[in-house]
């Protein structure tokens, strides 16, 4: 049995938790080796991932291009942190959206015969950063989660 959870823990972040019936070293390989990534990280229906080039070291870059007959979308990532079999942090930048860098943290955890990955995507908007510096921001966060949950029921899609 595998589980899948997709939530919005804060207004500027998304969390995806998934379990896999495989040991952590295989899940890690599938997340880091281009020839394996090309087999599964193909994105929307009818797309493929013909370009997947990874310079897998801190400061190294990765380049991905997804394609279908009408459409092409490229993304460049830069690795910020790599802890083997445990953790990968990178920033990602989609083509044509230079101001929209987000930070993606993937944590790998062994759980019996399974591996659980937790992906946190943090959207870094300048205004959100500025707002986060204001006093009372954190306190407000706590109180507001419940409000947001009620307000955005379509976002509570964890299964």
């Amino acid at each position, binding site marked *: 049995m595998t589980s899948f959870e*997709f939530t919005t823990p804060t*207004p500027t972040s998304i969390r995806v938790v998934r379990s896999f*019936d495989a040991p952590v070293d*295989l*899940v890690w390989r599938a997340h880091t080796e281009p020839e394996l990534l090309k087999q599964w990280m193909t994105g929307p229906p009818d797309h493929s991932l013909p370009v997947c080039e990874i310079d897998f070291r801190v400061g190294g870059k990765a380049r991905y291009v997804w394609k279908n007959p009408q459409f092409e979308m490229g993304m460049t990532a830069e690795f910020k942190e790599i802890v083997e079999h445990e953790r990968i942090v990178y920033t990602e930048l989609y083509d044509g959206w230079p101001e929209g860098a987000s930070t993606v943290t993937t944590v790998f955890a062994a759980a019996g015969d399974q591996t659980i990955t937790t992906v946190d995507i943090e959207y870094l908007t300048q205004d959100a950063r500025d707002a986060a510096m204001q006093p009372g921001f954190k306190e407000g966060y706590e109180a507001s989660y419940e409000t947001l949950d009620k307000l955005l029921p379509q*976002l509570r899609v964890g299964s």
Partner: protein
Amino acid sequence: MELDRSALVDQLDRTLTALADPTRRRIVARLARGEATVSELVECFELTQPTISSHLKTLERSGLISRSRVAQTRPCRLEPECLHALGAWLGELRSIYEDNYARLDEVLDKLKREQPKR
């Protein structure tokens, strides 16, 4: 990704930025229950009128709320389309992850078969 990602992400950015402030989230939550005038909001949140007005301006720019041009009190109302755009984008992202991971299950099965049992 058939959707115009940059336009959607632009909208998402504006929506999330507007919602990044706790007072603005409370205002949005209040307006989810129905229209309100500035003076009603001032009373409701015990904040000064300039503070409320400044938050309303940000919310209006983000498209999350609109203000009536007709009535003199210019009541504010929630515009749910923004939230729907956010929901649609997140729904698309969610299904991309689900599909990717279903394929990853197959890749992992293959790798397990190739790897000698430990």
